[in-house]
């Protein structure tokens, strides 16, 4: 069977864009707050449902859904940190306690979503027409997704390098004590990253849900590759996460081709991310961060 490699590459860009949006927030908050927020999966889900509510139940369309979901989920992300993780850390909770708390929070969010919207899979009704560009079949949704992901990645880059708050974020993540001594309000920096991270997760959720289905496990379904992106990119490293998202996207799509050629089930695509995750942890736990030491 001939493989359409152009299509594989394009699909990798689509997958990578979702992982990028989903992983950046987790990576930066993990780096700044020092623990992996397992409830990040539920922020993705929550964003998807808010997007669904705005776009489908209120009928306001995709752009409005993206903006509202960004703001609301960002707010929820901020409140989670401000209301639960920060006070817990101040009481001297260990990293294990913080991880357990984040899993607990994930359950609260997931089942609250399940109580409001039920566990039945829902679908975005907007029909996206598919058309061919050369040998590649694309849909409007995928083009939107890549456009939004690349634009946001570029905006994040500008913020991190050109603005005061961006520089404060980088300063805090490389050396919190020194940042504090330089008069940076670290708490505020961390709050902002939780807000932005939640917002980006929401956008990832909306696109993922539009492409597949939406149910309370939407975020949990992709949490494994997202963790793989965070680890491969180096925890807290923005540029590492950008590169890693597309590396994992590519590995998954090429991996599916290989799996099919070997006659294995393509549900193992998630196993590819797992293998990359484990190998990175064992061989080079700092991930791709060494490529971007100055970032």
């Amino acid at each position, binding site marked *: 069977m001939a493989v359409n490699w152009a299509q594989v590459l394009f699909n990798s860009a689509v997958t990578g864009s979702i992982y990028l949006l989903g992983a950046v927030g987790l990576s930066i908050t993990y780096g700044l707050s020092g623990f992996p927020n397992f409830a990040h999966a539920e922020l993705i889900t929550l964003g998807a449902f808010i997007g669904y509510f705005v776009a489908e139940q209120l009928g306001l369309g995709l752009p409005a859904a993206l903006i509202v979901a960004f703001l609301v989920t960002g707010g929820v992300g901020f409140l989670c940190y401000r209301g639960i993780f920060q*006070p817990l850390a101040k009481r001297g909770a260990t990293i294990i306690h913080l991880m357990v*708390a984040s*899993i607990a929070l994930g359950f609260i969010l997931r089942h609250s979503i399940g109580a409001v919207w039920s566990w039945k899979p829902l679908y975005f009704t907007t029909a996206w027409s598919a058309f061919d560009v050369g040998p590649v079949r694309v849909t409007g949704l995928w083009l939107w997704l890549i456009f939004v992901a690349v634009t946001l990645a570029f905006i994040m880059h500008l913020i991190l390098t050109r603005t005061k708050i961006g520089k404060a974020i980088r300063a805090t993540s490389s050396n919190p004590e020194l940042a504090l001594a330089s008069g940076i309000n670290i708490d505020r920096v961390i709050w902002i990253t939780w807000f932005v991270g939640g917002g980006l997760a929401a956008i990832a959720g909306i696109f993922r849900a539009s492409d597949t289905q939406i149910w309370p496990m939407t975020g949990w379904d992709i949490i494994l590759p997202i963790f793989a992106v965070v*680890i491969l990119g180096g925890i807290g490293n923005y540029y590492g996460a950008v590169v890693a998202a597309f590396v994992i996207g590519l590995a998954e799509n090429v991996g599916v081709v290989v799996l099919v050629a070997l006659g294995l089930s393509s549900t193992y695509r998630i196993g590819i991310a797992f293998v990359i995750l484990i190998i990175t942890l*064992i061989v080079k736990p700092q991930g791709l961060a060494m490529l971007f030491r100055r970032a």
Partner: protein
Amino acid sequence: MLLYGLDFLVFVGIFGIVALSLNLEFGFAGIANFGKVAFFLIGAYTYALLSKIGIPFFLCLIAGALTSALFGLLISLPALRLRTDYLAIAILAFGEILRLIVKSESWIAGGDWGISVAPAISTAGASHHVGILVNIGLVYFCLLICFVIAQLLANSPYGRVVRAIREDEIAAEALGKDRAKYKAQILMIGSAMVGVAGGLYAEYLRYVLPSMFMPMITFTVWIMVLLGGPGNNWGALLGAGLVEFFKYGTNLAKDYLNLPVDPINLQYILFGVLIILVLFYQPQGLLKESPIKTKALELARYGKGVVNNKPGK
């Protein structure tokens, strides 16, 4: 109603074993095992597959324990050199992948549909109650063995080394204790216990399905240990009892109350709230960590006879 109570007792027993094993790993050794369900699954599937080809139940249980321990050892080889948070992510991912494998490879054990499991001791002809009572006997026998092992470990010189590693890895290594080796052993013992619990679970429910082994199981066991008191084996049992009681209570309430919220959702929301409250206000759990009991300590505290050592004399 009686049936319901007996059913409850079986579940307390099975999850008591799982809680004891997590307590060994987290409470005593400080290992953040977020993939308990993986080893539970291994025990259950080993039991189911072996009992299908006619192997007696106690051998199936032992085989489940050994297989699970083997996987515990295998995962500990790379994983225990990792930082706490990396280990947590890696082991959680391991559980998810394992469930994926038994789900998509239907030749192993029926894939999504699972396979049925024969009862350990045939009680054909007797009433359903007798069947459950037999299970209670079996489960509590295993629980007793696990509890004795856990208590002996906790109070032995071995257990003191493990606790020392939890408190300060570097200091323990400076005293010549190989932390990776001790942690690998604890992970093996813990996994063996969960393997037994998994086998009992499969045997009691009479079937295994991939959807029985969601990450929720791991999380429930974490609540049991954190609520009861990490580092205290009685606490693990108390936690298992309380959490199962709460589960059965809400399931009962569902039949009598007309709630606007789906009780399953409500149950997990309340679990989440409960665990966060425990972490905020009672992070050491309901029962404090049991003090170490040794002859040497008694001797140091009281001398040979209590009289000789009274203060001021």
